[in-house]
């Protein structure tokens, strides 16, 4: 019996194929096209992303397995694919000027962005651990390079190297975890594990495998104590890539984590709950405490992203399938506030002078009221002030925790968000309450930046004031677990 390649199923992975093709196209053009306009590659990426997005929307109603069960087309995957493509769109928009300013090689930059998004899409649409691993590596390797694209910048080189070395360890853990799981159950499909668990299979090797898998995910999500790389990498990477990592990589890793655990290891989560509970508490508290004393806004946002991962983990710990839609909703909300905040950070800088110190924001509201207002909205949303999406996200996550009976976890979580308010407000305080310490100079208020900011603000308000459609979407996405 020969294996036949199921060509007709390729139609279901059109978005992935489109991204790949555009990635190669950009690479080839970089090599062969001598004369080109500065924003050619950016525009090509935008076109590729937008057309992929259209196909993803078409696929939203499907719920099938293709390629002999290696690949899934379901609501959860499609929703996340859509989210990744929106992230890619926004990041590409904000990169248009940023890449030019920082003189980053454009062909490589955009093609790697496309490939890494492709990797994320693979990650979230498989039940097979090996496929997930391939997606994970594709995403990670592209990001390692993207972090170090500003070669003459010491911090960028450090970030790239650090991320690569530690990331390689995490991948090794992950792969080893897969090996152990395979060894104990004879399956690399996560359905095999749930069957084994239902049969009462409960060996040390299986547990060890799950533990190693968790370490791999925790590294990508940046949960304490696997977060050490985050501040340095977020600081050193180009700002647009930082935004991409904080929104995209985190979402991809979290949702894959969710799929693997909720589809296969849910019986275990009652035992694992305690460990994850502890990780959630430590992650929130440690990140928020450290963020209090950061003077560099990118580092501050890095710690804040760790803290947000902690909040999301609160919903994860509950182990309630229905409530896991709060994770999806939170990730959507976080995407917009995060990309918005990083956009404001990106447009503040000039070539070679990034203006990342918090004091460079002093008195900004006087010279640039629009930028200050935008950044204020993003920071307030990160704080969780209603009626912005960040509030609704916290509302949903913490109400889920109460619903599942995790009262103390919720209490620690909300107290943490009060602590976090201090460092977000600190930036607002610098912008509005202080006089400028040095001349801010002209900042780059070009239309792509403004467009990204406005899109983000629109979604933050929409998702905050009328969250219903988004929560319904998230609910339908997690229905794949039932």
């Amino acid at each position, binding site marked *: 019996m020969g294996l036949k390649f199921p060509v007709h199923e390729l139609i279901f992975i059109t978005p992935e194929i489109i991204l790949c093709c555009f990635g190669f196209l950009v690479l080839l053009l970089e090599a062969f096209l001598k004369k080109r306009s500065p924003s050619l590659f950016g525009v090509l990426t935008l076109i590729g992303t937008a057309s992929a997005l259209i196909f993803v929307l078409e696929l939203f109603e499907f719920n099938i397995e293709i390629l002999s069960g290696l690949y899934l087309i379901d609501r959860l995957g499609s929703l996340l694919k859509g989210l990744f493509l929106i992230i890619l769109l926004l990041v590409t928009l904000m990169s248009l000027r940023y890449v030019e300013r920082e003189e980053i090689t454009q062909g490589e930059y955009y093609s790697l962005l496309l490939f890494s998004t492709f990797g994320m899409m693979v990650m979230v649409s498989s039940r097979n651990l090996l496929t997930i691993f391939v997606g994970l590596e594709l995403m990670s390797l592209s990001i390692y390079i993207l972090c170090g694209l500003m070669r003459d910048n010491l911090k960028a080189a450090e970030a790239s190297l650090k991320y690569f070395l530690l990331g390689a360890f995490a991948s090794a853990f992950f792969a080893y975890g897969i090996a152990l799981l395979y060894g104990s159950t004879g399956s690399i499909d996560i359905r095999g594990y749930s069957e084994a668990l239902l049969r009462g299979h409960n060996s040390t090797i299986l547990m060890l495998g799950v533990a190693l898998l968790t370490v791999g995910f925790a590294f990508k999500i940046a949960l304490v104590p696997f977060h050490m790389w985050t501040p340095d990498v977020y600081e050193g990477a180009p700002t647009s890539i930082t935004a991409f990592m904080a929104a995209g990589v985190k979402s991809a890793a979290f949702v894959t984590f969710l799929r693997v655990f909720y589809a296969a290891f849910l019986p275990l989560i009652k035992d694992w709950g305690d460990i994850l509970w502890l990780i959630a508490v430590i992650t929130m508290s440690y990140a928020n405490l450290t963020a209090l004393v950061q003077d560099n806004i990118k580092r501050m946002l890095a710690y804040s992203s760790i803290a947000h991962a902690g909040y999301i983990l609160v919903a994860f710990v509950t182990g309630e399938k229905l409530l896991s839609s709060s994770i999806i909703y939170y990730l959507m909300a976080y995407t917009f506030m995060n990309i918005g905040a990083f956009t404001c950070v990106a447009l503040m800088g000039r070539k070679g002078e990034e203006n990342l110190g918090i004091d460079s924001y002093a008195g900004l509201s006087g010279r640039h009221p629009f930028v200050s207002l935008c950044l204020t909205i993003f920071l307030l949303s990160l704080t969780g002030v209603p009626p912005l999406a960040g509030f609704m996200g916290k509302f949903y996550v913490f109400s889920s925790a109460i619903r599942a009976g995790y009262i103390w976890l919720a209490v620690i979580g909300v107290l943490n968000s*009060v602590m976090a308010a201090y460092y977000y407000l600190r930036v607002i305080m610098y912008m509005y309450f202080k006089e400028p310490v040095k001349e801010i100079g002209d900042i780059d208020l070009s239309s792509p930046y403004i467009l990204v900011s406005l899109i983000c603000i629109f979604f933050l308000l929409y998702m905050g004031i009328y969250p*219903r459609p988004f929560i319904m979407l998230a609910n339908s996405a997690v229905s794949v677990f039932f």
Partner: protein
Amino acid sequence: MVDIPILSILIFFPLVGAILLLFIPRERPYATKVTALLFSVVEFILSLPLFFFFDETKKGMQFVERSEWFPEWGITYFLGIDGISLLLILLTTFLTVLCVLCSWTDIKTKVKEYYISFLFMETAMIGTLCALDLVLFYIFWELMLVPMYLLIGVWGGPRRIYAAIKFFLYTMAGSVLMLLAIFALYYIYFKEKGVFTFNVIDLYGAHIPVSIQYILFSAFAISFAIKVPMFPFHTWLPDAHTEAPTAGSVILAGVLLKMGTYGFLRFAVPLFPKAAYDSIPLISILAIIGIIYGAIVSMMQPDLKRLIAFSSVSHLGYVMLGMFAFNMQGVEGSIYQMLNHGISTGGLFLLVGMIYERRHTRMIADFGGLSSVMPIYATFFMIVTLSSIALPGTNGFVGEFLILLGAFKAKKIYGILGATGVILGAVYMLWMFQRVMFGKIKHEENKGLKDLCGREIFILSAIVFFIILMGVYPKMFFKKMDLTVQEFLRFVEERNAYYAKVEESQEPSSIAKLIGDR
């Protein structure tokens, strides 16, 4: 008139003004001011029909608006007012006009942002007072923080940054715990009735085991007590008051503090009646400590604004004491005192703001003998001071008298201790007045001080008008709230009788067990 969504209009009209202000060019501060004034005056006029069309013979909520917002979760856009919120809304719209007027020359930098914050603030305040859905309430409640944070931080005094952040963090810390309690209440109600709802009127009917009532009540009570502020949660107040610009202090004292006491009346007490009854001794004692402590600390303040801030702690102590007497006199007096405090303390802050604008100091020691150079100012100051001391004939008397009467009725010792605050109040206010107004002029700068201008006289006349009206003809206001307060007391008593009958032994001991359905 049923069809006009008057409450929604009242809530969002200032917001429209704020958005409109965004588009007025920065170079034209005068246009900004006039627009802001126009919006606040129209808003005040719009709120007047509430008073005249409010049917005091009807029980329950009036001007109700209700539409679905998130039906699956039971969140509704649900507005309505009763006799309590009606008067507070009027106070809000009235004080906002005065605040816009008193900032006319006071605010010179970032004029546009200032008035935007102010109108935004008004939206949030009125929304908080109208909301009958807990989520809607919480949204407006938190929304009040941001403009106030900016008002203190941008246009405040030298230690404004410290004060602004302290204000924000304190209030937020209280309210997030309340949010969790709201969730718990929501799921408990679901467990009991099988319906998801954040509708307060429905939630009043929840049967919450007493042990859990204590937990939830304390979460709500701490949040509101911080806002009131009750001793020992009052420490943010003197800082915030002292550093805020005049109008900020007026709105803070006049309306924001009332949100705490209003929260007790609308949410904490009726939702958890048994816990509220059981905490009468604790809250009454804290209120009395607040009354006496606030008065004593006021006496020793060298700074006028700080003095008034501590006197607020004392006055709000009365409000809490009256409310937790749980009888007609006490509760009505307490609501009346909320209005009084808004008017008279608001007036005091306005007066201090006027003198600060002239002399750029608020130290009592820098003044003395002002009555000879500023006779009109001194007259107004006298009237407002007397109202704050609760002289018969002024509004303050009616409120404090009723509160003490209620407290006596409830428990004599509370009344006696509370009454000492009246004496202490007279001491610090009159002593302050004497040091500022009488005696010889010790400082050369004070000799050339100009008396009040027309705008200032107008503002203060409005205040004095209400001081006298509310002092001489309180019935006009009491008749609006009589039935509401009666219903409130009847409801709380009924519920307590019910809880007294419930067997305590069968109760689940923790929230987790109560909600958990697995």
